[in-house]
């Protein structure tokens, strides 16, 4: 088990900084995801950890040891690539044996370890197959097995599920997560899929433009996003205009079309400021409109089996997106009452 610490890691291409002085600590056995849109520097960061990209500045430490000048093959990492990168001219068994041969593991022990790991990924009996004779999901599991059989210090995964179809992707999420828990290996997972990052990770690192926007547990990231960018990236979000009435110790009292609330605030606001409140669509509950409640008109409703999505219009003209279980259904033109608890709101910024 290895602890990874990254300090002020930077990668420049000419004047452009793909990764800009990022720092993080990854605990032993932790599953951490680097999440962000393409070009945010997540893959470059992973490649620097793996040793495939030179580091412009900063340090990468495995258990305190700086590995920046260690070549990739000496870093003792297991890596799973987006396209699996299985050796097409080798059978499954030869693919798995490759890393063990490099480590000069004796033959009998090699066979034992390969059998064990193949059992783990449920691919016993596939030893003699060539990669092209396997389905995408099977190739994925071979890639995982090949990375794990060498018992590396760290497991790195670069968008490993991107090429699978939706159903298989969900199965593999659970599979990889369970496997990682069982093996207990420190894991860095790169993805642009927020659902993937949320369901699999102990902590998520959200990156934008080469910088870390937020590090936190999936709950932190989703329910307490540090800024609007993070909130938008990890899920849908409504913005509601509100007016600051009074300011307390780290809190502000606001009035909004959805009601009056006392909210914690990290930014400095003054009474009279117009601010934006953010609210997740599923935080809104709907009921038949009664007098004296914040209300809206249903513009459209969308049924997706497990959930109902509503497009709502507030009386001040603003639109809201609400997501509910399809228990009480409302039709276009219905007047509905809106309920949203104060703790589901957060204050994202002052309107200019």
């Amino acid at each position, binding site marked *: 088990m290895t602890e990874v610490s990254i300090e002020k890691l930077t990668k420049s291409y000419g004047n452009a900084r793909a990764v800009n002085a990022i720092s993080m600590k990854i605990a032993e056995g932790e599953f951490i995801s680097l999440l962000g849109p393409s070009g945010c520097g997540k893959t470059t960061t992973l490649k620097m950890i793996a040793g495939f990209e030179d580091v412009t500045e900063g340090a990468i430490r495995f258990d305190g040891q700086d590995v920046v000048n260690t070549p990739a*093959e000496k870093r003792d990492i297991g890596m799973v690539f987006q396209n699996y990168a299985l050796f097409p001219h080798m059978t499954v068994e030869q693919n798995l044996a490759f890393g063990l041969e490099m480590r000069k593991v004796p033959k009998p022990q090699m066979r034992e370890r390969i059998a064990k790991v193949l059992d783990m990924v449920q691919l016993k009996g596939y030893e003699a197959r060539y990669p092209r004779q396997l389905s995408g999901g099977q190739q994925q599991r071979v890639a995982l097995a090949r990375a794990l059989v060498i018992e590396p210090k760290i497991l790195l995964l670069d968008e490993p599920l991107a090429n699978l179809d939706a159903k298989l992707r969900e199965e593999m999420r659970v599979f990889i997560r369970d496997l990682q828990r069982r093996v207990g290996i420190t894991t860095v997972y790169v993805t642009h899929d927020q659902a993937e990052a949320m369901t699999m990770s102990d902590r998520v690192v959200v990156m934008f433009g080469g910088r870390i926007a937020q590090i936190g547990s999936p709950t932190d990231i989703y329910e307490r996003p540090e800024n609007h960018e993070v909130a938008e990236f990890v899920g849908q979000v409504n913005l509601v205009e509100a007016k600051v009435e009074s300011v307390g110790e780290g809190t502000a009292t606001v009035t909004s079309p959805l009601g009056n609330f006392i909210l914690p605030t990290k930014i400095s606001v003054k009474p009279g400021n117009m601010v934006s409140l953010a609210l997740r669509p599923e935080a809104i509950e709907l009921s038949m409109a009664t007098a004296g409640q914040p209300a809206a008109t249903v513009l459209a409703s969308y049924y997706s089996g497990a959930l109902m999505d509503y497009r709502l219009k507030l009386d001040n003209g603003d639109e809201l997106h609400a997501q509910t279980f399809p228990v009480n259904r409302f039709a276009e033109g219905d007047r509905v009452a809106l309920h949203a608890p104060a703790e589901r709101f957060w204050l994202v910024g002052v309107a200019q």
Partner: protein
Amino acid sequence: MSPGKTKGIGPYLLIAPAGLLLAIFLVLPYLNIGVMSFRVPGQGTPYGEGFTLVNYARFFADSFYIWQVVNTLWIGFLTTAICLVIGFPVAWQLTRPNMRFRGLAYGLVLSPLLVGIVIRSYGWTILLGNNGLINRTLTNMGLIDAPLPLMYNALGIIIALVHVFLPFMILPIMNGIQGIDPSLEAAARSLGASRATAFRRIVLPLSMPGIQAGCILVFVLSLSAYVTPSLIGGLKVKTMAVTVVDALIDTFQWPFGSALALMLSVTGAIIVVIFGRMTRMKWKVA
């Protein structure tokens, strides 16, 4: 015509022009040569009446011809091997993503093909001859007393053949290497392989299809080369192709020349098939 039927003959229609060309310019001539090789040698005419095995008997009875086949194969083999050794690094370098002057380098690779075969061979005689540029320079520098035998021997032929056939080695290998996913090398390194080991265990075996194609091309082209060996080998060293043309055109022995031509084709084909078997890639057909 039903749609199903259209589908049935469609693919054949597409390859029909190529098939027709092959039939007219390859199969028919070969049949002609095959029949001709069993004709009776003529007296004052290219061939006589009836059929006989005498042309093949003459080939196998005279070790001169057998040795000539062996010699031709040997020249073909060496040309192929040298092309491979010189060509692979070039192909490798040309496929590197950070290669500079790629266009220029590509042009240089193709340059031997841009010059007519006679001019090119003549150019080599200017360079390689006893009184040629290389020998004169070396003599003037006092490095040698007598000219080095660079021409009118197998060495000269091989030098000139390597020059012209190098593109036929480099292009297929480049093609092969370009088809290799770069992340495979990264995967090998992540598993603990040095750059050199990753190259030997991953890149090299995966470029085998290109190497195989390049080798077969260069070997076959070397066996059938005529102008270069005849201009550079002169009268002293003759490859089988030169002897075949001698027999057909200079001495007018069509049946015997045909037999010689077929013997060369058949041995060449056998070697290509054996080579193909030896280098068969199980992972490709699997």
